[in-house]
């Protein structure tokens, strides 16, 4: 792996560009390197690993015996990627991707446009928002953000910590806090009891999957050291003298920090900006790009690997990264069909193994509608401070989806470009209108997907015709 330090050292074009160096991106790089093709790997972070394997190359936790295994899980994969014959630009923001596979990338305050014959989008997942009253108060943060501080800086939250929500990451982080000797004071489990009925048919597959052993141990470790309240059906957070107060039916608790989490959803902004089609996934209650078994999208030459194509976890992401890279190698003429199929088979089997257990987790941890729809007083769009009540007013004015609501209220227009709020906005509109979620299209996303300075855009090339369209008056 050749590590680049700035956009000036990028070539103009690559055979393959991989966007995101989490498990899917690292696996794609490891498979695609060394085949005589030019391969570029891009990531926002200073090193390999993505969110789940953050700090895999250098971690402050390595010196903490109880947590030394946290960055360890992705080590073999990161080493394989590091050995691969690819170029890697860390600290890179990808702010543009279009159907012509032009990639706008910024690093260190300078921007470049590079073109790739094939692109693999591996931008991973982000946490599903949890728009309860008070979720935007100081002292409230997401479990994912708290875990980032743990992995990147070795920090644990101080004071009286209340965790609330549902999903594997909630339990994983609680277990990590227990291991670090800083257990949370209380864990409010919002998993709806009724979900068990939908989850049970998938239980057998789950028990046969590698998830089962992993999950059972986690839950047991947390329950031994932490007070857990199950079946919490609603939640509100209020500012209280000297801290916060969390209220649920049947109780209240004081807190210095409240950490919320209710699962993760695909981070699709870049794919959407390029023009990839999305569809509503009922089981995961989110938009998911349409992809085939190789990760190919509706756009020729653009594939998606990992959780961006639907949440399946780090191990499945790794497998799908190998598969997408093999498909790219075949398309680029570096691998014949038989060789591709043979090489892909074990990865496809691994992916299937991990996905088998996933249906149970999807059904069990699907948050209740009450936690996905913004109540009147709660903020749905944080950038523009748009509440649930404002969204219902927009529906009364005739807004049928997030794009018209955006025009009325600016929700989705802030720096996050709808990454954080789109699902809340869509589900709040769906609930207010009483229609099926699949009938509403997602927000239209346009570049820059991430903020970039005007000067950086000004440094891009223009053709004669493009200049004339602006100056020819």
């Amino acid at each position: 792996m050749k590590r680049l330090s700035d956009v000036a050292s990028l070539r103009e074009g690559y055979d393959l560009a991989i966007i995101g160096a989490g498990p899917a991106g690292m696996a794609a790089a490891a498979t695609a390197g060394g085949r005589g093709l030019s391969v570029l790997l891009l990531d926002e972070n200073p090193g390999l690993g993505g969110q789940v394997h953050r700090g895999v190359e250098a971690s402050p936790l390595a010196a903490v015996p109880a947590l030394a295994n946290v960055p360890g899980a992705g080590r073999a994969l990161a080493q394989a990627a590091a050995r691969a014959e690819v170029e890697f630009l860390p600290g890179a923001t990808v702010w543009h991707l279009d159907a012509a596979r032009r990639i706008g990338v910024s690093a260190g305050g300078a921007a470049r446009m590079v073109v790739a014959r094939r692109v693999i989008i591996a931008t991973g997942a982000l946490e599903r928002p949890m728009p309860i009253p008070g979720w935007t108060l100081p002292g409230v943060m997401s479990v994912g953000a708290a875990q980032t501080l743990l992995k990147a800086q070795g920090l644990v939250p101080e004071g009286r910590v209340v965790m609330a929500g549902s999903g594997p990451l909630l339990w994983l982080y609680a277990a990590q806090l227990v291991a670090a000797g800083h257990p949370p004071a209380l864990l409010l489990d919002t998993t709806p009891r009724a979900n068990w009925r939908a989850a049970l048919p998938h239980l057998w597959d789950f028990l046969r999957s590698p998830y089962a052993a992993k999950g059972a141990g986690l839950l047991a470790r947390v329950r031994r050291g932490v007070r857990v309240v199950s079946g919490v059906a609603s939640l509100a957070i209020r500012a209280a003298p000297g801290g916060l107060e969390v209220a649920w039916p049947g109780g209240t608790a004081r807190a210095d920090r409240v950490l919320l989490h209710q699962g993760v959803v695909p981070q699709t902004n870049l794919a959407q900006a390029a023009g990839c089609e999305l569809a509503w996934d009922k089981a995961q209650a989110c938009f998911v790009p349409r992809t085939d078994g190789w990760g190919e999208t509706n756009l020729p030459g653009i594939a998606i690997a990992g959780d961006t194509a639907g949440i399946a976890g780090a191990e499945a992401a790794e497998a799908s990264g190998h598969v997408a890279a093999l498909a790219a190698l075949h398309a680029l003429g570096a691998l014949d069909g038989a060789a591709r199929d043979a090489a892909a088979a074990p990865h496809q089997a691994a992916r299937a193994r991990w996905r088998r257990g996933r249906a149970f987790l999807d059904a069990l941890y699907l948050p209740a509608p009450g936690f996905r729809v913004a109540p009147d007083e709660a903020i749905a769009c944080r950038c523009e401070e748009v509440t649930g009540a404002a969204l219902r007013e927009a529906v009364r004015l005739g807004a049928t989806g997030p794009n018209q609501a955006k025009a009325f209220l600016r929700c989705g227009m802030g720096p996050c470009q709808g990454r954080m709020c789109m699902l809340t906005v869509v589900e709040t509109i769906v609930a207010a209108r009483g229609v099926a979620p699949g009938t509403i299209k997602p927000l239209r996303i346009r570049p820059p997907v991430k903020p970039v300075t005007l000067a950086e855009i000004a440094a891009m090339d223009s053709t004669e015709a493009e200049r004339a369209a602006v100056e020819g008056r």
Partner: protein
Amino acid sequence: MTRAFDIAVVGGGIVGLAVARGLAGRGLGVAILDEGDVARRASRGNFALVWVQSKGLGMARYGAWTTGSAALWPGFAAALRAETGQDVSLAQPGGYSLCLSEEELDRRRAAMMRMHNQPGWEPIPWEVQDHDRIARAMPGLGRDVVGGVFCPLDGHVNSLRLFRALHASALARGATYLPDHPVRDIAPLPGGGFRITTAQGEIEAGRIVLAAGLGNAALAPMVGLTAPVRPQRGQVLVTERTAPFLPHPVATLRQTDEGSVMIGDSKEENPVDEAVGPGVLAAMARRAARMFPVLGGLNIVRSWGALRVMSRDGFPVYDESETAPGAFLVTCHSGVTLAAAHSEVLAPMIAGGGLEDSVAAFSARRFDVPSAA
């Protein structure tokens, strides 16, 4: 069951809503038939200028119509605020066209002179100013700006709030808004009136106003009208919010009431879609940074492309069908500037006896005249 209305307005953009609001204010039962959440909406992508200085070269009447609408705007904005509580943030401090070379400035000045020398032109105030004069009014002006044209009648609004206020005002006045009702067919009925086939069933209306932007091209022939409109793509860049520094709107960039700076000056013919192209955005960004160097350090948080609704000569088309009485056509590309005139002048004509002589110049019949050799 077929729903019946006095009048149906096809199109829920700023043009259709402004007309519908005016009609509803005259006591008519109005239906607004609109597309859904995802549609080609110039009203969601426009630049929000209430602009006078460059309007009318080639048609003197358009200049006067524009100036008249700009003059109606303060009262129009106040009425919207009273009816809906929405402040559309109208500001008419005068605006500039800035030129980055002597050649550009000469072209600009010559166009202004030609416009003002047209027969029937109703004079508007304007002047060419040099760099130093503009820099006194606009601190932060880049050294590459050699001069520009200033017109004290120019201004801007918050066009998204205008869009919302028009929706709220039309509803408050009793109009019925029907989203997800794209129109498939319009049939004039023998005894008068129209049967409109939408994606969600049929609607009957005594009269009909086509205000569907680019969609008018296909709809107009169904009622004996023609709407020769084509899409012209424009792209816009928006910065993060920053402290107020631009006291006047410029034809190609303006600071909104919320602090962000909008930059937009591309005119692209034969667009295949509404997508943004980095090369065009780069050319826009370079010019903007030369006009106001401080912009270079601001983050761009959004960009978009939208399709202007351009008639063959660029001027509005207002028409009334001869073969299907009660069918009207309203289309233009300056829907924000003309919103006040559409709501307060044009709609009352449609509600009353029909289009009056004062707007006869805007009939599509002007395109039937063979051009002089």
